């Protein structure tokens, strides 16, 4: 199943799947049904036992569907737009016009590359300032023409070397968040793979924020966190536990609204199934927002992010966390 790249637990998963396939080839019987059910239960058990760091590796899986895979599968007539009208066209961010279930929408996504050449071209999905400025441009266009904005987040972080600084990476990311916070159209942000810090939140200011089941969303990469705190990158699994970067934890923190289920073993094992689930969630989110006026959309978004945080005021605990 899938490509050549396998995480260690995937071999076990494949072995179980193989047994199921063999059983399915036999003529149907009560015994066969029970055996399949038992094997499927073992699969679920295996997936439930994944560590947070296993989930990080799943979120980064090189066979995982990327933004353009979802865009092709979910939207009709995607027209990609290019350039920031200032410096260039950043291929780490794709943006354009499309139709979702008959509805015109703007789509912005971070795109990692599939092979070595494409990864280079797309800077591994790490956007430069011109990428965020292209996103801002498309958001403003959507706002002007009253079209919802959908963002697909998948980046280990924004570009951070000298050329990014020289062209104002901080200023581009800040402006993107500010512009997105002020849009008078529905905005839905989905973390589809890696939600890496500032590079992710730059296009993450949604009226609704959704997250794929095996995506990660974090203030810092666990390796960097371990390197900074313990001066030891190999302690990344510990850092992954400490950072609360999985979808269930993001939900508990009150940072996302919904987890989109993935096919057994992760989106890359059944990209079509994953795309169907994402499409269903997007349509539902847009329908829920469609009756709100521009002013109501702005207010809802403001209040949503305004409430985020956990602190004490005197002795009183103020918290956005949920009991889930």
């Amino acid at each position, binding site marked *: 199943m899938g490509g050549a790249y396998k995480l260690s637990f995937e071999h076990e998963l494949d072995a179980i799947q193989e047994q199921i396939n063999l059983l399915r080839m036999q003529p149907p019987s009560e015994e066969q049904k029970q055996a399949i059910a038992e094997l499927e239960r073992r699969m679920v058990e295996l997936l439930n036992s994944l560590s947070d760091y296993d989930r990080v590796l799943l979120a980064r899986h090189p066979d995982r569907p990327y933004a353009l895979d979802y865009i092709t599968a979910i939207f009709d007539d995607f027209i990609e737009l290019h350039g920031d009208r200032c410096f260039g066209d950043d291929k780490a961010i794709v943006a354009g016009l499309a139709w979702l279930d008959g509805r015109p929408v703007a789509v912005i996504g971070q795109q990692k590359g599939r092979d070595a050449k494409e990864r280079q071209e797309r800077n591994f999905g790490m956007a430069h300032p011109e990428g965020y400025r292209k996103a801002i441009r498309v958001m403003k266009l959507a706002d002007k023409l009253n079209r919802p904005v959908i963002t697909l987040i998948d980046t280990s972080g924004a570009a951070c070397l000298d050329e990014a600084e020289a062209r104002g990476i901080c200023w581009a990311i800040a402006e993107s968040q500010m512009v997105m916070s002020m849009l008078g159209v529905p905005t839905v942000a989905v973390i589809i793979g890696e939600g890496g810090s500032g590079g992710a939140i730059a296009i993450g200011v949604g009226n609704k924020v959704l997250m794929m089941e095996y995506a990660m969303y974090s203030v810092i990469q666990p390796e*960097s966190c371990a390197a900074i705190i313990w001066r030891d990158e190999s302690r990344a699994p510990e850092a992954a536990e400490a950072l609360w970067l999985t979808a269930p934890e993001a939900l508990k923190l009150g940072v996302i609204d919904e987890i989109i289920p993935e096919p057994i073993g992760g989106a890359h094992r059944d990209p079509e199934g994953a795309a169907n689930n994402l499409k269903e969630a997007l349509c539902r989110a847009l329908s829920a927002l469609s009756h709100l006026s521009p002013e109501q959309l702005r207010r809802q978004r403001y209040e949503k*992010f305004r409430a985020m945080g956990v602190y004490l005021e005197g002795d009183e605990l103020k918290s956005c966390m949920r009991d889930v």
Partner: protein
Amino acid sequence: MGDAKATLVSEAEENLWVKCEKCNALTYRKEYERELRVCPQCGYHERLGAWERLKITVDEGTFEEWDSEISPADPLNFPEYKDKLEKSQRTTNLKDAALTGVAEIEGIPVAIGITDFKFMGGSMGSVLGEKITRLFERAVKHRLPVFIISGSGGGARMQEGLLSLMQMPKTCAACAKLHQARLPYIILLTDSMAGVQASFGALADITLAEPGAMVGFTGPRVIELSLKIKVPIEHRMAEFQFEHGMIDMIVPRKLVRPTVAKLLRWMCK
């Protein structure tokens, strides 16, 4: 600002000489304080704590603190976070890395926010984000200009995980309200500023920086730790950002107060 009022500690409190952290030059302490802790030999601007910064920035006796009762929690139960907080609280006389309130600068009322590098690198967690957000909201309510002095070199505070990251859009959205209300916003970037510079720190009408301040999205140390690439420190300095058009003025410490007053007079008329 060269008057006795600006002196940070009384002469008797400390020993007589100060050694510059950068060039090792010795300066008579009284003179060093008169220079607002800038080395007269090499111009190195020593980092100031929030209370020290406040003292040399606003008119004496005009500061009224806002939201002093807000303090950090430990929502993720993150390893060693509580100890780090306690240590920072002891050394800075702050509950978290931000001090906010209203004060006057040369007689002009201003909503002021100061983030303190000495408190866990000035990193932004829930408390700093909430206080800056309230600063913008209250400035809108009372029709005040905003002046922020930032030393948030620690970026988003990883010990509060995603909650820290969410303070970025939260403060950006609050800042948008200030702009929509047509109120001025000035920021001074001090050593050092990273990560959360990509939020409220990059949204001011006018951006000033102190000479030699480290300013950037990702500091050289973090880049080296995570990407194993060495970047020259000069490429994460205020002067580099100025050269590339990100900063309006590099302002030596002694000129900050008169410069800000001059700007506010134009902006608030």
